């Protein structure tokens, strides 16, 4: 079964995988992230955690202290922003952290910190990722999986997360990423 899954996942090549790698692949397949085909596209950078989510990870970065979940439906949400799951309210939430909507998606990653919001159905935000000073992007997977670093935001486009659509930026904080 596992071999069949890997065969499908890796475009026909049977891979020599460790149990932990098989687990990773199952997760990526569950999300429909078949485009993450090689280790050069992504790497896992944290243990699993349910204490924070992708929105907190994008908005607060390392300073989110790994213990805050951002979501308009019952979890932490900036005080002056209406609790709605739609794009305009997520933009307002990130604006409360100093981000502004921007058009440039590349360049000067050391001084500028970017995030991208992923849009799903009905203008709902389903995921967010943050650009590191290296130029790579970081995403927290789901409510209880790991963080991964990925080469481009589009590599996270999938049915479960929607599409990378709205970019926002701010001056990169001096401490942490």
């Amino acid at each position, binding site marked *: 079964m596992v071999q069949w899954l890997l065969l499908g996942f890796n475009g026909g090549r049977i891979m020599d995988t460790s149990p932990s790698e098989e687990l990773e692949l199952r997760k990526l397949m569950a999300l429909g992230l078949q485009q993450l085909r090689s280790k050069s596209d992504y790497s896992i950078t944290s243990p699993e955690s349910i204490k924070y989510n992708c929105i907190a990870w994008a908005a607060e970065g390392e300073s989110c202290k790994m213990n805050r*979940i951002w979501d308009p*439906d*019952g979890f932490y949400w900036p005080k002056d922003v209406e609790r709605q799951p739609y794009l305009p309210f997520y933009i307002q939430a990130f604006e409360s952290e100093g981000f502004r909507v921007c058009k440039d998606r590349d360049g000067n990653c050391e001084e500028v910190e970017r995030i991208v919001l992923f849009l799903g159905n009905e203008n*709902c935000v389903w*995921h967010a990722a943050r650009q590191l000073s290296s130029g790579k992007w970081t995403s927290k997977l*789901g*409510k209880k999986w790991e963080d991964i670093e990925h080469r481009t935001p589009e590599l996270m486009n999938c049915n479960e997360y929607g599409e990378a659509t709205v970019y926002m930026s701010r001056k990169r904080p001096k401490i942490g990423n």
Partner: protein
Amino acid sequence: MPITSPGRPQRQSSGMIWTPPKRRGLGNEPSNDPWEFDKTAISLGGTTRYPLSSQLPPKGDYVAFVGISKSFIDPQTEKDFYELLEKWKAETDGLSSVRQISMNEHYQCIVGLGPKAIPIILQELAKHPDYLFWALKCIARPASDPIQENERGDIGAMAAAWIQWGKDNGYIAE
């Protein structure tokens, strides 16, 4: 013949002698302690409440079992809950949006289990905090959400707030 005299042996219609247990709150007076009793029986003489672990008297023509406390864990509901929970986790652990996670069909079925699921959800939250707060809020309505604004986002604090609510409202036996 009333059955509400604790400690006094009583002859039942079957001819057997049965002594009601001596317990605080027995009789018609309501108890302030929701954990003292788990079963309620009613007779012509009034209402008697018994610990869940105790045997009810042999059912005669004057005793009827009428209720179970809010903390009682119904085995069938518990089985249904854990089956749904496993399927819900398998389908949503990789999702990020609480709206998506809560709209999952298995999660909605957990909500559909109703008030009997409350002690079971609280028991699960105490062991493994997860995104079960929406389900609790839906089932417990019109009770107010016990989570304080400064606790939102901290899943451990949110679980603790609901567990305290469960204790305060009789859903968790201490």
